């Protein structure tokens, strides 16, 4: 092989008969079979997912006479926002005719502390499980995970008793605690996986530096766990905001969350069902989590990749 003499910058084509063949990037057709299949499938799927939303929105903008015509898919002939107004502020349950508006603020008052408390507890749990394992910690964790499978209905009664015993039944605090308890399994799992996937050496370095349990958590771990916090916040906000069962069982009418209000509006049938109002109320109720998803969907996926599924 000593006889080869190849110059580095030999002009192209030397020694080749075929100088005119394909060159440069492989041509790609916008309408290749692959693309048609790919985008076709995606668009079909997207339609399936969007259809209910479309129907909800369209219906909520129609007046009752138009709804009686029956075609739920046709766009509104005459757009009216009255159902929205009604759903928000005047729909009645029993004697209360202030629609969802009151429930909205109740929901906020329930959701914010619940989200904060449940995430605070779960993240500390996850951190302790990942980095400060003590004897028996795993057992508690497994119990917690199994607990995620217990239907909530089963736990209503024991929790009533527990709350009664500690005197928190019916208070907002009680409800916040209940939400934290039931959010704990999945959130703890998320945080534990996330903290486990962080380099152990970081934790050790901080210990050598003399930081303790809380010091490491607050100053090292927290600032690094934005992705998983995003996931946790999204999951909890949707979960708690959408909760009906706990909201109705562990609160009283003046603190009913929005979903209970929604249930009341939707189920308080006065003669014919006012589908437009129901739909408007439904959208209004789902609006907060929806907005969160639309805004932070990308972060959500990234966070899930970081914490929930470890390969």
């Amino acid at each position: 092989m000593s006889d080869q003499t190849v110059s580095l910058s030999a002009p192209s084509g030397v020694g080749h008969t075929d100088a005119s063949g394909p060159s440069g990037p492989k041509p790609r057709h916008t309408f290749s079979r692959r693309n048609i299949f790919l985008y076709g499938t995606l668009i079909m799927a997207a339609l399936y997912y969007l259809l209910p939303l479309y129907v909800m929105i369209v219906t909520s903008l129609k007046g009752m006479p138009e709804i009686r015509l029956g075609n739920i898919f046709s766009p509104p002939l005459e757009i009216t926002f009255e159902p929205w107004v009604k759903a928000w502020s005047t729909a009645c349950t029993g004697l209360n005719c202030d629609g969802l508006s009151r429930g909205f603020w109740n929901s906020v008052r329930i959701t914010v502390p619940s989200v904060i408390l449940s995430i605070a507890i779960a993240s500390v749990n996850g951190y302790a499980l990942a980095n400060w394992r003590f004897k028996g910690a795993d057992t508690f964790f497994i119990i917690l995970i199994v607990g995620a499978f217990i239907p909530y209905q089963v736990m209503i009664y024991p929790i009533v008793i527990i709350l009664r015993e500690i005197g928190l039944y019916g208070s907002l605090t009680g409800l916040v605690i209940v939400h934290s308890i039931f959010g704990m399994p999945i959130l703890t799992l998320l945080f534990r996986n996330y903290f486990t996937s962080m380099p152990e050496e970081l934790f050790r370095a901080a210990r050598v530096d003399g930081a303790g349990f809380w010091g490491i958590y607050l100053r090292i771990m927290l600032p690094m766990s934005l992705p998983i916090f995003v996931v946790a916040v999204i999951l909890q906000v949707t979960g708690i905001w959408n909760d009906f069962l706990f909201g109705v069982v562990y609160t009283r009418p003046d603190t009913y969350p929005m979903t209970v209000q929604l249930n009341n509006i939707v189920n308080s049938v006065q003669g014919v069902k006012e589908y437009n109002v129901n739909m408007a109320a439904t959208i209004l109720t789902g609006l907060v989590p929806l907005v969160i998803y639309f805004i932070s969907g990308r972060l959500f996926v990234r966070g899930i990749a970081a914490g929930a599924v470890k390969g």
Partner: protein
Amino acid sequence: MSKSERPSRLFRNLNAKVASIPMILTALVVFVGGTAWTVLYSFTNSKLLPRLNFVGLDQYYRLWATPRWLISIENLLIYGVISLVFSLVIGFVLAALLDQKIRFEDTFRTIFLYPFALSFIVTGLVWQWLLNPDFGIQGVIRKLGWTSFAFDPLYNSSIVIYGISIAALWQGTGLIMCLMLAGLRGIDEDIWKAARVDGIPMWKTYLFIIIPMMRPVFITTLVIIASGIVKVYDLVVAQTSGGPGIASEVPAKYVYDYMFFAQNLGQGFAASTMMLLSVMIVIVPWAYLEFGGRKRV
């Protein structure tokens, strides 16, 4: 000042233990305590209020002789299989499609994911309406001229559980897709290259190489789906209230109805105990394998 003695076990990691108190309390008091309490009272004939009036296994005999419970179990099985299979398949297919470096990935992903932001109550309402034979999909298509078209799963006892599944899938597949997508993104790029060099067609690569490699993701996903399946309640209530007749009853609803509606706590507790038992049989071994065995420093 120098500690030559091994300090007490109890006080090592004290902070961690203190910080875990909420978890420990939850695990012990709520989950273990609540469960034990439930099991204990399932052997009584408690009615509206729990009372320690033991009647042995009577509640269980009655439970397994009740047609509604049997239907509930059957429904849960059908619903479970459908949800599992279809969420996994749909979720994976969507994730695989989104993983093809497509345009508007964000948009599509958001569209698939948004239903997850809605509660089961809302989902149930919307789909109840879409599936209403008079003015839902069936009605609209009939009006378009195809008068014999029939699609009324919610009003047909034999397929109602499938109708419920449609809504459940609509709501839940987005999350599954996200999990799958995250899993796919975690696969070593070189595997794809190796498969291409080997000339393995895309679908075969997915089927024989990628999917087996994503086992951990599938397991996580499975747990999430399964815990949702066992708990299914709101959706049924919102969509059919268990109807027509008792054709779409599910165990969680049986528990609820008998505890509160029929004011027969004993019966409800017996049913919940059965549910718990089946969950435990599946979950506990898994949880031990997944979380108990592997030790880390």
